[in-house]
């Protein structure tokens, strides 16, 4: 894919690149940008004009776009499997730790556990209802979900083969194997392994980025509001980027083998002592 055409843009606060054998027509490019912008306008808790911001200001019953249905189901499942640790209600906890819309990076008080799903939120299909203001954060799956939505737009437009790279979260469809380095969790110049990606999504999560303050980082345990410490980097392979993205975060709370009982996916977890655990598909991908 070295001679492929690349369409690069900024979306939901990160860099995107869509690679295709032929250049994407201008109207399709515009359409993709509009789709990404709409997603941001619906789901971003960093924008005062988003649906999520409205829900945080004014409790009530909100109709979200179509993608809310699979997203809500996925979050509900992961909420149960992780015993409440992984929750879309973590937004308030993140804000407390300084990861707020203004990026103050200043803790505003002691860690704040996320509210219980049952008492705070009714999410059924595309309808989200809350009796009190809640800060919804779909960060654990949102980027992957948007990768899937961009892929759907490409497929609807008849683009048969493509690679979507949302700053390290990847989806390859109809494009033959793409060789991908697995970034070293502490040295972006290095890789700890290499994998050939074909027809699936590969997502990663790491605990060492977006780090600030007294050892605070962005992967929080919803039951305590405290950062998680042991796993330092995770990778997942799944059919959709939404699932791969969410499970890359879930691996910080639940062993991969446990998640495999519910999800059809492959996983790799690197721990803070430099050891690694992985499922069969990652066998042979690590440098040793």
């Amino acid at each position, binding site marked *: 894919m070295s001679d492929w055409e690349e369409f690069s843009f900024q979306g939901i606060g*990160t860099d995107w690149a869509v690679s295709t054998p032929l250049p994407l027509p201008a109207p399709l490019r515009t359409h993709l940008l509009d789709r990404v912008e709409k997603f941001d306008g619906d789901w971003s808790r960093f924008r005062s004009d988003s649906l999520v911001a409205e829900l945080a200001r004014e409790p009530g019953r909100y109709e979200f776009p179509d993608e809310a249905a699979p997203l809500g189901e996925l979050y509900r499942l992961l909420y149960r499997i992780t015993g409440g640790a992984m929750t879309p209600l973590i937004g308030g906890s993140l804000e407390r730790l300084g990861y707020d819309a203004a*990026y103050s990076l200043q803790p505003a008080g002691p860690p704040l556990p996320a509210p219980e799903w049952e008492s705070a939120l009714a999410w059924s299909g595309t309808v989200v209802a809350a009796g009190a203001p809640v800060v919804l954060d779909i960060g654990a799956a949102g980027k992957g979900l948007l990768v899937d939505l961009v892929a759907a737009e490409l497929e609807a437009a008849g683009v048969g083969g493509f690679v979507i790279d949302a700053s390290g979260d990847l989806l390859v469809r109809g494009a033959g194997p793409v060789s991908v380095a697995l970034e070293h969790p502490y*040295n972006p110049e290095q890789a700890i392994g*290499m994998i050939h990606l074909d027809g699936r999504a590969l997502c*990663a999560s790491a605990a060492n980025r977006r780090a*600030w*303050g007294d050892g605070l980082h962005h992967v929080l345990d919803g039951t305590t509001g405290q950062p998680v*410490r042991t796993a330092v980097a995770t990778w997942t392979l799944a059919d959709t980027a939404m699932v791969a993205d969410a499970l890359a975060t879930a691996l910080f709370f639940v062993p991969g083998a446990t998640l495999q009982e519910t999800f059809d996916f492959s996983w790799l977890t690197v721990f803070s002592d430099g050891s690694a655990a992985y499922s069969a598909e990652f066998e042979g991908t690590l*440098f040793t």
Partner: protein
Amino acid sequence: MRPSSPTSLSLSRDAFRNGLFAGIAGLSLAGTVAGCAPSSADNTPGTAGAPPAPSAGSSSLAASGTGYKDGTYSADGNYVSPNGTETVGVQLTLAAGKVSDVQITQHPSNPNTRKFQGQFAGGIAAQVVGRNIDELNVSKVAGSSLTSGGFNQAVAKIKSEAQ
């Protein structure tokens, strides 16, 4: 800069210039600092009396790399690990305004941290090791999903506070 800013590098007086600070901050945020916990707060009283930065705007400084003085610079970063506060040293060599070399110096006080840092500064040991991506034949890199425009905003904010 405020004590809990994410980059937390305390620079020696001669090394502290706005452009250089920006360069180091970027490296730190890119995950260069070794250790099993994020880099953490460090006050920078030594920088208070530093000479003011050149008049160029901070964003253009960061983008163009101009205003960096060649040489080798050292800075310490602190982070809080489960074992307590630890320090890691970063040494940068600048040539023609660009970073040509990065060295991580380990001086942890806690034996467990020493063990972890040793493993990570030398690549991941135990079961996995690092290889330079440049030397691999790959099309893409899958890593931390967190390259973030918002985070860059935070860096810009720190830079302005560091002036």
